[in-house]
């Protein structure tokens, strides 16, 4: 806004100097408004981030404490160790799998939503938003109940004559929990992208004898790409850092990066190594975010 801020500045001969002063005043006001949260984030976000960086170069001493003198790269070198590499690749793989499954479910669903009448569509959207707002821990726990011994799923499979299942504490259960947790994150950006597409473009491609598949492949998919990318990043990143889900639904062989980092702090007491792993996780996140913004995504 280029409004002059004081009634007195309404004098007919507002000199350029006067305007400059008014602008400076506006700029100062903006800065003062931002200042409290700016300072807050510097103290409670930027400084903590710097501390993690420092710790990642430190050494763990014999008592499980951290020696901050003598910086080295030992913690980062440990990432090449087989155990760590296994966990890292497993996390990337499961996060990738979660993302793909969410995409396969959410894309047709988002398209389905976009083809409903506006009144129905809004109601349907509300019912997607509800799980999005519902406590994540509780939603994961629900699956623990369902998959548990003699739980509803076993009852169902036995009733259908399929025998018992051993899903709980497996990687499948973790992926299931992650898909359940993050599906709304995929649906919402996809829906936003598809809803914006002009339906006439698809009609035109059909009129020009494009098959359903060709219309999808050459018209719908390219136009909805920003939604695909946004949704994928919104699902992939939290899946990679997941801690609650593998802890509740996973077992010994499903340690993911998130839980591995937590272990370094709460049980193994190797803080420098945990700090280094946190940084790796954040680096992956930053790369993802940069891709997202490059591809023209704006809303988070």
């Amino acid at each position, binding site marked *: 806004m280029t409004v002059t*801020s004081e009634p007195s500045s309404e004098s007919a001969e507002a000199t350029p100097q006067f305007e400059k002063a008014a602008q400076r005043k506006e700029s100062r006001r903006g800065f003062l408004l931002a200042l409290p949260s700016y300072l807050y984030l510097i103290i409670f976000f930027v400084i903590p981030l710097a501390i993690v960086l420092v710790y990642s170069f430190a050494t763990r001493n014999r008592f499980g404490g951290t020696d901050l003198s003598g910086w080295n790269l030992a913690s980062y070198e440990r990432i090449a160790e087989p155990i760590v590499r296994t966990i890292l690749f497993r996390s990337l793989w499961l996060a990738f799998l979660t993302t793909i499954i969410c995409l396969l479910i959410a894309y047709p669903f988002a398209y389905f939503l976009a*083809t409903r009448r506006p009144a129905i569509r809004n109601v349907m959207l509300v019912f997607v938003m509800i799980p999005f*707002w519902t406590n994540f821990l509780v*939603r994961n726990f629900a699956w623990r*109940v369902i998959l548990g*011994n003699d739980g509803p799923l076993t009852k169902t499979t036995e009733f259908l004559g399929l025998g018992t299942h051993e899903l709980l504490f497996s990687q499948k259960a973790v992926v299931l929990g992650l898909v359940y947790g993050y599906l709304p994150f995929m649906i919402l950006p996809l829906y936003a992208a598809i809803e914006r597409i002009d339906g006439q473009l698809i009609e035109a491609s059909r009129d020009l004898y494009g098959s359903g598949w060709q219309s999808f492949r050459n018209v719908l998919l390219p136009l909805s790409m920003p939604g695909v990318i946004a949704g994928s990043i919104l699902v992939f*990143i939290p899946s990679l850092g997941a801690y609650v889900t593998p802890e509740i639904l996973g077992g010994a062989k499903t340690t993911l990066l*998130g839980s591995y980092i937590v272990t370094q702090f709460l049980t193994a007491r190797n803080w420098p190594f945990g700090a280094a792993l946190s940084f790796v996780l954040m680096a992956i996140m930053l790369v993802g975010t940069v891709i997202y913004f490059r591809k023209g995504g704006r809303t988070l």
Partner: protein
Amino acid sequence: MSTAVEPRGWAKAALHINGWLVYIFFYAPIALLVLFSFSDNRNVGIWGGFTLDWYQDFFDSSNARGALSNSVKIAIVVTIISVILGTMAALALERFTFKGKKVFDALLYLPIIIPDVTMAVMLLLFFGEFFDVLDMLFGLQLRKGFWSITISHIAFNISFVSVIVRARLSGMNTNLEEAAVDLYASRWKAFRHVTLPQIVPGIAGGALLAMTLSLDDVVITQFVTGPGWTTLPVYVFGLIRKGVTPLINSISVIMLLASMILVVLSLFAERARRGG
């Protein structure tokens, strides 16, 4: 804008089936959880007749009630402070230009996209060092608990509130504000009487999201809490790791109910926001 074209034939049927399956997938687990919270069987997930015992357990457990009251206290303080700071930040970014604006804008996004675990680690190390420094300089012996959790929740909620309030501000016509100022309203008066009433739905939406995120947080809270201090999700998480009991079912349903109330309120805020 024309609506996307609905496909015909088998593709149409497949879309419909997928749609219904997604809703079943979303709601069946929640429905089963609620159902089993009333089941008179020590084994969760097996129906054993109707009972309210597990809810009685919750009200009898002073730990659970204590954790609930901690959660609520923290959520209230967090919501108030995050809403004030987040709204100020949103106004600064949407209505003013100032030095360092771009850096501030980028910084404000980081707490939203950073993984929980990383943020938890950051704050754990920060409070460790911070308390050491305070002890060294002033001989203050602080312990982690209410304030360390509250400060941490605010650190991520400022960003969420500001995103929601900004969305409202950017969709708003500035003509009215300009008219008010032209009519000799001070900048503050223009804000108080013109801008603020219009962004109230945005602020309410932000407040509800902040409260929800504060009530739900497990990972960060677990890292910055101190001995003898626990919130309801951290308490439940601890219980789940020890073994599943029906008490967890009933607490889960109570948490679910709290989430639902907040969703409904936020939908009203959303409607008011759309209605303008």
